[in-house]
């Protein structure tokens, strides 16, 4: 019940495409859903986050869509660029300190 399932494992898109990464959870106590971006040799960095009282949040080219009834959320990257090539992690926190991370998605944006 504590898992966060993330898909796909890897994703290749053309520059300008819109990669979509999906996550699903089971624990209804989760109330904070962040996404992290990780470049090789670096630690993950917070990209964008959403609370379950909203269905969508945009920050620049990054959008989170949240479906509370389905217990799913997804990250969309608009007008993707080669510089967006990285590993993306979804995560969920049950209002405490034990943030649970998905397995990660390796994104490659072709120039």
């Amino acid at each position, binding site marked *: 019940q*504590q898992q966060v399932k*993330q898909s796909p*494992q890897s994703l290749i898109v053309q520059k300008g495409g819109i990669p979509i990464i999906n996550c699903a959870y089971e624990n209804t106590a989760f*109330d*904070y859903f*962040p996404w*992290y971006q990780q470049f090789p*040799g*670096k*630690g*993950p*960095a*917070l990209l964008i*986050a959403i*609370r379950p009282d909203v269905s969508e949040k945009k920050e620049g080219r990054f959008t989170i869509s949240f479906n509370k009834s389905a217990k799913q959320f997804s990250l969309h990257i608009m007008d993707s660029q080669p510089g967006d090539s990285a590993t993306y*992690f979804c995560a969920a*926190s049950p*209002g*405490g*300190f*034990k*943030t*649970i*991370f*998905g*397995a*990660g998605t390796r994104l490659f944006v072709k120039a």
Partner: protein
Amino acid sequence: DVKVTQSSRYLVKRTGEKVFLECVQDMDHENMFWYRQDPGLGLRLIYFSYDVKMKEKGDIPEGYSVSREKKERFSLILESASTNQTSMYLCASSTGQLYGYTFGSGTRLTVV
């Protein structure tokens, strides 16, 4: 620029050695965390601390211990290193329950 600093980028240790991984943050954050990152498994929580001298077990605490004697420093200890502890170790800090984490760059530990 605020940051979380992990003392070593790469470490190679022998089986059975006691290993110390150090983490320091300069943001005056209350909460600190240790995760390990393995391909296909994402990040898994080892231990966390919400105050000085306080610690809580995460999802995979076996074989590890931690120490937090000062607010800015959180150490991960492998009491007797084993080959299955070869991994990337990530330290993070946060200021509250519903805020994101700031991660260090990680320590890649190899146990031979």
